[in-house]
Structures are given as structure tokens and as C-alpha cells.
């Protein structure tokens, strides 16, 4: 018993010691951070005129100077952080000028030497700032750092810094290689990082599309969202037939967004794809492309197992003139199960939407549809607010 008690008392002493140490540490940290905050604010105020000076003369011909007088360490950091903030917001000549100031002031040199610091925290913060300053000369060193880094949120911090600072396409590629080697499907993140570069990306993306590494292809496809340029269409054409599901889906979506001329044959193939994302994307684009020849395909797709495919098909049918709309009405009237629900839903929606159209040609189109509608469902004075359509069990996101 007594020995137990002794142990317990020792434990009490240890606890007391730790609590005391913790409290001291807490107060010390708090006081230190208050002091740093105060000083930072003081320096910001002191250099307010200087910051105004810089902002006024960003467009001038001559190089920008540092503030007059000798600067303390913290003062330099305050000025540097302000410059980094500006660099992040501007582009073009003005950014270049600020970058040059960072370089001339020795900020870049100081942070590069910090990359060899013994403390991990200092290395990472230096890398972060170097990215902020777009320091091209630090890229090789940061690439080594990225290579050694195991996967963590900080991998992304370093990768981003490299992307911002890189001056050559191959550096970006190397960065992607290190980033993706951990096997995580982070293609969206990688694309976002890649697009931070100040370099012209169109050539690089094209090269990535042709790469044998499927991860690179995916990154390129995601990065191209919304900017499918004509040059990439051949590459996309090839990728539409790619074996990997994700690549194919992304390629098809991108391909269709460029409003290509689709052969009926291609449409049929794509509509029979095993991936619902592909089918949905194609069903959607048929309506936009006015490919009236595909009405039978869309009709079948109303029975698709996937909700989005059914929905997009119905939407496209409503867009394909009278013939398409009539098919929709037919199914809404005589069909069964999910296809009927989907069709009905979209017939109602189309009637409601088009009632608002003002222009003459749209009125005519609408009236034609209305005639069709009445043939199938009779004249309705006021449309009832339909109860929510139960579109069948659907287990996809």
C-alpha cells in the first residue's frame, strides 16, 4: 500500500511540475506574440508612407528602393510580407518590378539560405515565402525538398511554391511527378497548383496530354476545363477511347464542351459507354448540338439506370424541336416506371418555362409544343403544382 502511495505522490509531483511548466510556457508565448503583434503594427505604421510611395510609382521606369535607413529583422519581414501580398495580387510588369525589389533587397537570398535550416518549420516557411516572391533561382532547391518530403498538407505548400516560381516547363513537370508519386488521386489539386504558374500553360498541357503517365493526362484534362482550344481536339479524340474510366469521362466532357461535329456512330458508341458520367455528358450535349438524328437513342436512355443520364436525356429531348417533344409526351402518357416519371417531369417543366418567352419565333415554337401537349393531356387551365416526382431508387451522387 505504502509503495503505491509513494508512486502516486511522485505522480502528483510530476503533474504539478508539468502544469507549472505548461503555464509558464503559455504566458511566455502569449506575451511574446503580443509583443510581436505590437511591433509589427508599429512598423506597418512607420512604413505606411513608404508603402504608399511604392504603390504610387509602380509604373515608373526606375527600380524600386527599400525604405531609407537601417531595418531590423522584423522590419524587413514586415516589408517583405507586404511585397509578397502585392505580388500575389498583380500580374504583368508591375509584378516583375516587385519581384526585382525582393531580389535586390536580399529577401530571396535570405530565404534560400533558410531552406538549409536545421528546423523543418523554418524550411517550410522559407519555401512558402520564396513561392510568394516567385523566386526562380530557388526552384531546383525546392524540387529536392519536395522529393524528400513524405505526403502531408505541406507537400502541397511546397509544390505550390515551385509552380509559382518555375521558369521552365520541365520544372513544372518534375513538380507534378513528385506530387503524384504518392499515388493519391489529387488531380484537381495538382491542376490548381499547376495553373498558378506564370508561364504559358497551353503548350505544356498539350505535352501532358500526350504523356504516357495517365496521371499527367488526367491533370491536363482537369486543368483544361473551360478552355478547350482547337489544337487539343486531336489529342482528345484519341483519349475519348482511353481505357481508363476517369480519363475517358474527363476527355469526353472536355471534347463535347468544344461543340464538335459528332458522327451518329460516335454518339451511339458513347451512349453505350459503361461509365454513367460519359453517357450523361453525351445525352446533355445532344440537345445543345441539335443532333435530331439521335432522338431514338435518347428515348432509350430515358430508361437508363442512372438518374442524371435519364434527366439529361429528357432535357435534350425537350430541346430537339417538335419531334423530340412529341417523344417526350408519348412516354409521359403511355410509358411506365422511371421513364414516365422523368418524361412527365420535363414536359411540365418545358411548358412552364416556355410560357414566359416573348419573342415571336419562340412563341411559335412554344405554341406548337402546346398543341402537342394538349393533344396528349387535354387543355389544362391552371397547372397543378405536381407532387414531387419519385424518380426511383437512385444510389449515385
Amino acid at each position, binding site marked *: 500500500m505504502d509503495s503505491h502511495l509513494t508512486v502516486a505522490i511522485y505522480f502528483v509531483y510530476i503533474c504539478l511540475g508539468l502544469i507549472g511548466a505548461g503555464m509558464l510556457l503559455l504566458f511566455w508565448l502569449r506575451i511574446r506574440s503580443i509583443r510581436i503583434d505590437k511591433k509589427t503594427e508599429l512598423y506597418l505604421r512607420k512604413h505606411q*508612407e513608404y508603402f504608399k510611395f511604392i504603390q504610387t510609382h*509602380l509604373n*515608373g521606369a526606375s527600380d524600386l528602393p527599400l525604405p*531609407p535607413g537601417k531595418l531590423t529583422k522584423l522590419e524587413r519581414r514586415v516589408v517583405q510580407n507586404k511585397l509578397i501580398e502585392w505580388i500575389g*495580387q*498583380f500580374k504583368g510588369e508591375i509584378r516583375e518590378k516587385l519581384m526585382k525589389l525582393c531580389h535586390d533587397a536580399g529577401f530571396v537570398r535570405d530565404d534560400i539560405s533558410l531552406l538549409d535550416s536545421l528546423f523543418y518549420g523554418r524550411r517550410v516557411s522559407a519555401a512558402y515565402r520564396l513561392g510568394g516572391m516567385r523566386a526562380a533561382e530557388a526552384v531546383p532547391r525546392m524540387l529536392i525538398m519536395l522529393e524528400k518530403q513524405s505526403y502531408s498538407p505541406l507537400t502541397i505548400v511546397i509544390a505550390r511554391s515551385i509552380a509559382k516560381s518555375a521558369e521552365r516547363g520541365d520544372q513544372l513537370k518534375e513538380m507534378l511527378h513528385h506530387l503524384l508519386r504518392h499515388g493519391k488521386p489529387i488531380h484537381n489539386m495538382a491542376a490548381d497548383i499547376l495553373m498558378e504558374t506564370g508561364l504559358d500553360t497551353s503548350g505544356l498541357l498539350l505535352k501532358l496530354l500526350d504523356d504516357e503517365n495517365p496521371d499527367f493526362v488526367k491533370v491536363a484534362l482537369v486543368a483544361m476545363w473551360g478552355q478547350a482550344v482547337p489544337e487539343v481536339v486531336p489529342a482528345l479524340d484519341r483519349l475519348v477511347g482511353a481505357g481508363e474510366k476517369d480519363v475517358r469521362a474527363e476527355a469526353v466532357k472536355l471534347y463535347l464542351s468544344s461543340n464538335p461535329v459528332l458522327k451518329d456512330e460516335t454518339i451511339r458508341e458513347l451512349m453505350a459507354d459503361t461509365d454513367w458520367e460519359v453517357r450523361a455528358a453525351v445525352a446533355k450535349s445532344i440537345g445543345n448540338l441539335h443532333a435530331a438524328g439521335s432522338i431514338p437513342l435518347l428515348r432509350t436512355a430515358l430508361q437508363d439506370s442512372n438518374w442524371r443520364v435519364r434527366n439529361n436525356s429528357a432535357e435534350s429531348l425537350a430541346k430537339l424541336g417538335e419531334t423530340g417533344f412529341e417523344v417526350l409526351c408519348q412516354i409521359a402518357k403511355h410509358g411506365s416506371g422511371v421513364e414516365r416519371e422523368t418524361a412527365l417531369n420535363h414536359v411540365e417543366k418545358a411548358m412552364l418555362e416556355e410560357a414566359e418567352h416573348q419573342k415571336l419565333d419562340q412563341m411559335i415554337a412554344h405554341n406548337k409544343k402546346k398543341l402537342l401537349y394538349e393533344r396528349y393531356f387535354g387543355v389544362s387551365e391552371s397547372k397543378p403544382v405536381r407532387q414531387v416526382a419519385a424518380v426511383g431508387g437512385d444510389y449515385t451522387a
Partner: protein
Amino acid sequence: MMPNTTLESRQEQTSLYQEIEQSVKETGLEVSGVLFISCAGGPSYMETQVRGILESQPGLTYKVWGGEEPGSFFILLPGQTLDAVHFQGLLLKQRLQEIIADFDPRMTLASFPEQGELTQQVLIQMEDSVKHHASGEIHIFSREEVQASRSRILIVEGDATVREFLEIRLQMQGYETAVADNGLSALDLMESWKPDLVLTELNLYGIDGLPYIHHIQQLNVAEAPKIVVLTEQRVEQTISLCFQNGVDDYITKPFSPVELDARIRRCIH
């Protein structure tokens, strides 16, 4: 007696301005900077201090005259462009404050012909402007101060750094500006201050995005302001919705200030 003295001093002053003008011509350089500094309330040895500071910089030529009020000087810096004069101003101010703590010299500076022709009128205005500006900040003299009607731009931006930059930049271009840091006070300002153009971020506190754009258009004003969006939001759908809802221009960050100037000019004219 009194009126007579002022008259005399005026005459004296006139000759001073002429002298300065004369000196500028004599230098024969393309540009020359002029800095007016008022150390009112400072100790009497100010002039020697100022001269000492200027002297300490190798390669700097200068000329100093006493101004109308005691403790104020005109400093001519031949061959200096505006940014260099501005830097001299910074340096002077900093050194003076090192010598005398809590001392607040007032400054107006200009460089010619960057800011027009150097005339007596301009020199008088420079001297006066020091009195009008309440804050102790270094003031850059600009011709626009003479102009009466200017276009009004409301800057709405949550980020203080960008807000400050836009304000400085647009003021330099001669626009009258006001700032707001959130959607709600921006809408209030649009109604009360009636800007010609709103340069706005889409992502704001209070109200933002499309509802915010809608609110601008439903404001109770005679003429809705033009809307230029400057934002980080790059989603295509949002951009096209903005244009559909009456936004005049859409610029994404990071932005090129030169391009921004051009787009604003196009929107206003």
C-alpha cells in the same frame, strides 16, 4: 502698417517664385523636382538639419529657399523624376523624425514637366496645399486638384491591401474615390454618394455574389452605376451570370493594374 508688410512680403515672395523658376531654367535639365517642406512648430535649426541631410547624400544637387512662413522651405532637386523626389521626401522625413521624435513635417512635392508647367501659380498652390491637408502624409501635388468635376468611383473590396492600392491608383488617375469593405455599406454608399462606377469584389461580407448585383440594379437612384467586377471567382457559370445581370466588365485576380485602368476608362467614357 500691416497691409503694407504683407504687400511687401508678397512682393518678396513673388521674386522668390521667379527666382525658383529662373533656377529651373538655368539647370537646363529635362526634369526637375520641387519639394516644399513646412516645419512649422519645429525648432529653429531646421534649415541646417535639412541642408545637412541633403548634403550627406553623395551626388545630389539641390538648392534651398525659405518660404513665406517661417520654418518652411522650397527645395529644388534638378534632374529628379517624381519617384526620386518622393523618395527624397521619405528620406528627409525619416531622418528629421530620427533627430526630433514626434515631429511631423508637412510636405508637398512635384516634378516638372511630369505634372505640367512650373509656374508661379503652381508654386503658390503647392505652398497652400500643405495647409489644407490635415494628415501629416507626404502629399504629391497634382494638376487634377484644379479640376472641378471628376468621375466618382466606389471601391468595394474586403482585402485591405488591395483596397488601399486601388484607392491610391485611381486617385492618381484623377478619379474621386470612396471605399467600402462590405456589401451592405457599399449599397448604402451607392445610394448616398452616387458613384458613376463601382469597382467591386464579388465575395464580400454582408451580401455578395449575384444577389448583391441585383440589389445594385434595384437601388433607389436616378442612374444605376456601372459595375466592374474585380474578383478571385473564376467559375465560368458565375461570370456569364454576372454579364447577363448587367455587369459591365469582369476582371479576375491576379490582375494587371494597367489593364484595369484601361477597362475602367472604357466603361466610364
